[in-house]
Protein backbone atom coordinates (compact mmCIF):
# COMPACT_ATOMS: atom_id res chain seq x y z
CA UNK A 1 0.00 0.00 0.00
CA UNK A 2 2.57 2.50 1.08
CA UNK A 3 4.74 1.46 -1.83
CA UNK A 4 1.82 2.21 -4.12
CA UNK A 5 1.35 5.65 -2.57
CA UNK A 6 5.03 6.47 -2.78
CA UNK A 7 5.04 5.57 -6.46
CA UNK A 8 2.03 7.74 -7.07
CA UNK A 9 3.66 10.72 -5.40
CA UNK A 10 7.08 10.34 -6.95
CA UNK A 11 5.60 9.79 -10.37
CA UNK A 12 2.73 12.27 -10.39
CA UNK A 13 4.35 15.31 -8.81
CA UNK A 14 6.52 16.47 -11.76
CA UNK A 15 3.63 16.24 -14.24
CA UNK A 16 1.34 18.16 -11.92
CA UNK A 17 4.04 20.76 -11.31
CA UNK A 18 4.54 21.09 -15.05
CA UNK A 19 0.92 21.88 -15.86
CA UNK A 20 0.35 24.08 -12.80
CA UNK A 21 3.48 26.18 -13.35
CA UNK A 22 2.60 26.48 -17.03
CA UNK A 23 -0.69 28.14 -16.24
CA UNK A 24 0.88 30.47 -13.65
CA UNK A 25 3.79 31.64 -15.80
CA UNK A 26 2.07 34.35 -17.91
CA UNK A 27 0.71 35.93 -14.71
CA UNK A 28 4.09 35.84 -13.01
CA UNK A 29 5.87 37.50 -15.94
CA UNK A 30 3.13 40.13 -16.17
CA UNK A 31 3.23 40.80 -12.42
CA UNK A 32 7.03 41.16 -12.49
CA UNK A 33 6.92 43.63 -15.39
CA UNK A 34 4.06 45.68 -13.93
CA UNK A 35 5.51 45.85 -10.41
CA UNK A 36 8.93 46.78 -11.79
CA UNK A 37 7.44 49.52 -14.00
CA UNK A 38 5.45 51.10 -11.16
CA UNK A 39 8.32 50.67 -8.68
CA UNK A 40 10.82 52.30 -11.06
CA UNK A 41 8.43 55.15 -11.79
CA UNK A 42 7.99 55.90 -8.09
CA UNK A 43 11.69 55.35 -7.44
CA UNK A 44 12.84 57.79 -10.11
CA UNK A 45 9.99 60.30 -10.43
CA UNK A 46 8.21 60.44 -7.08
CA UNK A 47 10.82 59.66 -4.43
CA UNK A 48 12.80 62.80 -3.51
CA UNK A 49 16.56 63.29 -3.52
CA UNK A 50 18.25 61.98 -0.38
CA UNK A 51 19.63 64.78 1.79
CA UNK A 52 22.90 62.98 2.57
CA UNK A 53 23.56 60.74 -0.41
CA UNK A 54 22.06 62.77 -3.24
CA UNK A 55 20.81 60.71 -6.19
CA UNK A 56 23.17 57.78 -5.64
CA UNK A 57 20.82 56.37 -3.00
CA UNK A 58 18.43 55.32 -5.80
CA UNK A 59 20.62 52.25 -6.23
CA UNK A 60 19.17 50.80 -3.03
CA UNK A 61 15.80 50.28 -4.77
CA UNK A 62 17.38 47.26 -6.45
CA UNK A 63 20.33 46.61 -4.15
CA UNK A 64 18.32 45.81 -1.02
CA UNK A 65 15.68 43.62 -2.76
CA UNK A 66 18.43 41.71 -4.60
CA UNK A 67 20.31 41.14 -1.34
CA UNK A 68 17.14 39.89 0.35
CA UNK A 69 16.40 37.58 -2.57
CA UNK A 70 19.95 36.21 -2.56
CA UNK A 71 19.42 34.99 1.01
CA UNK A 72 15.79 33.85 0.66
CA UNK A 73 16.52 31.90 -2.52
CA UNK A 74 19.42 30.18 -0.78
CA UNK A 75 17.22 29.09 2.12
CA UNK A 76 14.55 27.87 -0.32
CA UNK A 77 17.20 25.97 -2.29
CA UNK A 78 18.61 24.33 0.87
CA UNK A 79 15.09 23.46 2.09
CA UNK A 80 14.01 21.85 -1.21
CA UNK A 81 17.34 20.02 -1.47
CA UNK A 82 16.86 18.68 2.07
CA UNK A 83 13.25 17.63 1.37
CA UNK A 84 14.36 15.94 -1.83
CA UNK A 85 17.07 14.06 0.03
CA UNK A 86 15.06 13.03 3.10
CA UNK A 87 11.80 12.04 1.37
CA UNK A 88 13.37 11.03 -1.93
CA UNK A 89 11.04 13.50 -3.64
CA UNK A 90 12.24 14.08 -7.17
CA UNK A 91 10.39 17.34 -7.76
CA UNK A 92 11.92 18.88 -4.63
CA UNK A 93 15.43 18.07 -5.83
CA UNK A 94 14.64 19.52 -9.24
CA UNK A 95 13.37 22.73 -7.65
CA UNK A 96 16.56 23.03 -5.62
CA UNK A 97 18.59 22.82 -8.82
CA UNK A 98 16.33 25.30 -10.58
CA UNK A 99 16.74 27.83 -7.77
CA UNK A 100 20.55 27.86 -7.72
CA UNK A 101 21.27 29.93 -10.86
CA UNK A 102 18.64 32.53 -9.87
CA UNK A 103 20.14 32.83 -6.42
CA UNK A 104 23.54 33.28 -8.01
CA UNK A 105 22.20 36.07 -10.24
CA UNK A 106 20.60 37.88 -7.29
CA UNK A 107 23.87 37.60 -5.36
CA UNK A 108 25.77 39.03 -8.32
CA UNK A 109 23.29 41.92 -8.55
CA UNK A 110 23.56 42.60 -4.81
CA UNK A 111 27.37 42.61 -4.94
CA UNK A 112 27.65 44.69 -8.11
CA UNK A 113 25.07 47.30 -7.15
CA UNK A 114 26.64 47.45 -3.69
CA UNK A 115 29.94 48.25 -5.35
CA UNK A 116 28.32 50.95 -7.46
CA UNK A 117 26.83 52.41 -4.32
CA UNK A 118 29.99 52.02 -2.22
CA UNK A 119 32.27 53.84 -4.64
CA UNK A 120 30.62 57.27 -4.22
CA UNK A 121 29.48 56.67 -0.61
CA UNK A 122 32.63 55.12 0.87
CA UNK A 123 35.17 56.01 -1.80
CA UNK A 124 35.92 52.37 -2.57
CA UNK A 125 34.45 49.61 -4.75
CA UNK A 126 35.14 46.90 -2.23
CA UNK A 127 36.20 46.38 1.39
CA UNK A 128 36.72 43.11 3.21
CA UNK A 129 34.14 43.80 5.84
CA UNK A 130 31.86 41.18 7.36
CA UNK A 131 28.73 41.94 5.31
CA UNK A 132 30.49 42.08 1.96
CA UNK A 133 32.70 39.08 2.63
CA UNK A 134 29.83 36.85 3.82
CA UNK A 135 27.79 37.85 0.74
CA UNK A 136 30.78 36.95 -1.45
CA UNK A 137 30.90 33.55 0.30
CA UNK A 138 27.21 33.15 -0.61
CA UNK A 139 28.17 33.64 -4.27
CA UNK A 140 30.85 30.95 -3.91
CA UNK A 141 28.31 28.61 -2.28
CA UNK A 142 25.97 29.01 -5.25
CA UNK A 143 28.82 28.47 -7.72
CA UNK A 144 30.05 25.49 -5.70
CA UNK A 145 26.58 23.93 -5.57
CA UNK A 146 26.06 24.30 -9.33
CA UNK A 147 29.55 22.99 -10.13
CA UNK A 148 29.10 20.03 -7.80
CA UNK A 149 25.71 18.86 -9.09
CA UNK A 150 26.78 19.34 -12.71
CA UNK A 151 30.01 17.40 -12.16
CA UNK A 152 28.27 14.21 -10.97
CA UNK A 153 26.60 12.25 -13.76
CA UNK A 154 24.35 10.11 -11.56
CA UNK A 155 21.37 12.41 -11.00
CA UNK A 156 20.38 11.12 -7.57
CA UNK A 157 23.93 11.12 -6.25
CA UNK A 158 24.37 14.64 -7.58
CA UNK A 159 21.17 15.74 -5.83
CA UNK A 160 22.32 14.22 -2.53
CA UNK A 161 25.80 15.73 -2.71
CA UNK A 162 24.32 19.10 -3.61
CA UNK A 163 21.83 18.86 -0.74
CA UNK A 164 24.65 18.26 1.74
CA UNK A 165 26.56 21.29 0.47
CA UNK A 166 23.43 23.47 0.44
CA UNK A 167 22.44 22.50 3.99
CA UNK A 168 25.90 23.02 5.46
CA UNK A 169 26.23 26.33 3.61
CA UNK A 170 22.92 27.59 5.02
CA UNK A 171 24.80 28.59 8.18
CA UNK A 172 26.17 31.48 6.14
CA UNK A 173 22.75 33.11 5.70
CA UNK A 174 22.25 34.23 9.32
CA UNK A 175 25.88 35.30 9.33
CA UNK A 176 25.15 37.65 6.39
CA UNK A 177 21.96 38.94 7.96
CA UNK A 178 23.37 39.66 11.41
CA UNK A 179 26.89 40.61 10.28
CA UNK A 180 26.14 44.32 10.59
CA UNK A 181 25.18 43.78 14.23
CA UNK A 182 27.78 41.22 15.25
CA UNK A 183 30.77 43.06 13.86
CA UNK A 184 31.80 46.63 13.30
CA UNK A 185 31.27 47.00 9.60
CA UNK A 186 31.42 49.78 7.08
CA UNK A 187 28.09 48.57 5.74
CA UNK A 188 25.15 50.36 7.32
CA UNK A 189 22.70 48.54 9.57
CA UNK A 190 19.29 47.29 8.53
CA UNK A 191 17.00 50.05 7.29
CA UNK A 192 13.93 47.89 7.69
CA UNK A 193 13.50 45.49 10.59
CA UNK A 194 10.55 43.51 11.90
CA UNK A 195 10.61 45.29 15.25
CA UNK A 196 10.89 48.97 14.40
CA UNK A 197 9.41 51.52 12.03
CA UNK A 198 11.46 51.87 8.84
CA UNK A 199 14.01 54.67 8.91
CA UNK A 200 13.13 55.81 5.45
CA UNK A 201 10.83 58.21 3.65
CA UNK A 202 7.57 56.52 2.67
CA UNK A 203 7.82 56.98 -1.13
CA UNK A 204 11.34 55.53 -1.01
CA UNK A 205 10.02 52.60 0.98
CA UNK A 206 7.15 52.03 -1.48
CA UNK A 207 9.55 52.00 -4.44
CA UNK A 208 11.82 49.52 -2.69
CA UNK A 209 8.96 47.23 -1.68
CA UNK A 210 7.43 47.28 -5.19
CA UNK A 211 10.79 46.26 -6.65
CA UNK A 212 11.05 43.57 -3.97
CA UNK A 213 7.71 42.13 -5.12
CA UNK A 214 8.83 42.46 -8.74
CA UNK A 215 11.94 40.41 -7.90
CA UNK A 216 9.77 37.83 -6.14
CA UNK A 217 7.51 37.48 -9.19
CA UNK A 218 10.53 37.33 -11.50
CA UNK A 219 12.21 34.71 -9.30
CA UNK A 220 9.12 32.50 -9.37
CA UNK A 221 8.80 32.91 -13.14
CA UNK A 222 12.40 32.16 -14.07
CA UNK A 223 12.72 29.32 -11.55
CA UNK A 224 9.50 27.77 -12.90
CA UNK A 225 10.80 27.98 -16.46
CA UNK A 226 14.07 26.35 -15.44
CA UNK A 227 12.32 23.69 -13.33
CA UNK A 228 10.06 22.86 -16.30
CA UNK A 229 13.15 22.39 -18.44
CA UNK A 230 14.70 20.12 -15.81
CA UNK A 231 11.47 18.10 -15.54
CA UNK A 232 11.44 17.55 -19.32
CA UNK A 233 15.13 16.62 -19.36
CA UNK A 234 14.77 14.08 -16.58
CA UNK A 235 11.34 12.65 -17.37
CA UNK A 236 11.55 12.44 -21.15
CA UNK A 237 10.68 8.74 -21.04
CA UNK A 238 7.54 9.23 -18.94
CA UNK A 239 4.20 8.71 -20.60
CA UNK A 240 2.92 12.23 -19.87
CA UNK A 241 5.99 13.87 -21.45
CA UNK A 242 5.52 11.75 -24.56
CA UNK A 243 1.88 12.83 -24.67
CA UNK A 244 2.90 16.45 -24.19
CA UNK A 245 5.51 16.26 -26.94
CA UNK A 246 3.00 14.72 -29.33
CA UNK A 247 0.42 17.40 -28.50
CA UNK A 248 3.02 20.10 -29.16
CA UNK A 249 3.88 18.55 -32.52
CA UNK A 250 0.22 18.44 -33.56
CA UNK A 251 -0.36 22.06 -32.61
CA UNK A 252 2.59 23.34 -34.61
Amino acid at each position, binding site marked *: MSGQRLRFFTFAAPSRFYSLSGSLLPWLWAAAALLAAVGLYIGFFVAPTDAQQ*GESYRIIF*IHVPAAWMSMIVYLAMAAWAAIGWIFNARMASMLARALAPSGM*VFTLIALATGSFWGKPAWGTWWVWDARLTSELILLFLYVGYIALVEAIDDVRRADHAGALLAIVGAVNVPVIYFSVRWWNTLHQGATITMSAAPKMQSTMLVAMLLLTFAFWAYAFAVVFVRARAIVLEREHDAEWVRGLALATRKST
Partner: protein
Amino acid sequence: MSWGSAGEFFAMGGYGLYVWGSYGLTAALIGFESWLALRRRQRALREALASVSASASASTGAPR
Protein backbone atom coordinates in the same frame (compact mmCIF):
# COMPACT_ATOMS: atom_id res chain seq x y z
CA MET B 1 9.22 65.40 -9.70
CA SER B 2 12.76 66.56 -9.20
CA TRP B 3 14.07 66.59 -12.78
CA GLY B 4 14.21 69.80 -14.80
CA SER B 5 15.26 68.11 -18.04
CA ALA B 6 16.16 64.76 -19.56
CA GLY B 7 19.84 65.67 -19.24
CA GLU B 8 19.44 66.24 -15.53
CA PHE B 9 17.66 62.91 -15.23
CA PHE B 10 20.49 61.03 -16.93
CA ALA B 11 23.16 62.88 -14.98
CA MET B 12 21.61 61.75 -11.66
CA GLY B 13 23.20 64.62 -9.81
CA GLY B 14 26.67 63.52 -10.88
CA TYR B 15 26.04 59.88 -9.93
CA GLY B 16 24.89 58.81 -13.40
CA LEU B 17 27.63 56.23 -13.87
CA TYR B 18 26.85 54.51 -10.59
CA VAL B 19 23.06 54.65 -10.80
CA TRP B 20 22.76 53.68 -14.48
CA GLY B 21 25.61 51.20 -14.12
CA SER B 22 23.63 49.45 -11.39
CA TYR B 23 20.34 49.43 -13.25
CA GLY B 24 21.93 48.54 -16.58
CA LEU B 25 23.85 45.62 -15.11
CA THR B 26 20.75 44.37 -13.29
CA ALA B 27 18.67 44.54 -16.49
CA ALA B 28 21.40 42.76 -18.45
CA LEU B 29 21.77 39.95 -15.90
CA ILE B 30 18.00 39.42 -15.61
CA GLY B 31 17.58 39.50 -19.40
CA PHE B 32 20.42 37.04 -19.92
CA GLU B 33 19.15 34.69 -17.22
CA SER B 34 15.60 34.71 -18.63
CA TRP B 35 16.91 34.06 -22.14
CA LEU B 36 19.01 31.09 -20.96
CA ALA B 37 16.11 29.58 -18.98
CA LEU B 38 13.58 29.98 -21.81
CA ARG B 39 16.04 28.57 -24.34
CA ARG B 40 16.73 25.59 -22.08
CA ARG B 41 13.03 24.74 -21.80
CA GLN B 42 12.53 25.08 -25.57
CA ARG B 43 15.44 22.73 -26.17
CA ALA B 44 14.18 20.22 -23.58
CA LEU B 45 10.76 20.16 -25.26
CA ARG B 46 12.37 19.71 -28.69
CA GLU B 47 14.47 16.81 -27.42
CA ALA B 48 11.45 15.16 -25.79
CA LEU B 49 9.66 15.44 -29.13
CA ALA B 50 12.66 13.98 -30.96
CA SER B 51 12.82 10.99 -28.64
CA VAL B 52 9.08 10.37 -29.10
CA SER B 53 9.46 10.45 -32.88
CA ALA B 54 12.48 8.15 -32.72
CA SER B 55 10.72 5.55 -30.56
CA ALA B 56 7.52 5.87 -32.60
CA SER B 57 9.30 5.05 -35.84
CA ALA B 58 11.27 2.25 -34.16
CA SER B 59 8.14 0.60 -32.84
CA THR B 60 6.12 0.71 -36.08
CA GLY B 61 5.07 -2.79 -37.05
CA ALA B 62 6.38 -4.19 -33.79
CA PRO B 63 3.91 -3.26 -31.06
CA ARG B 64 5.23 -3.68 -27.54
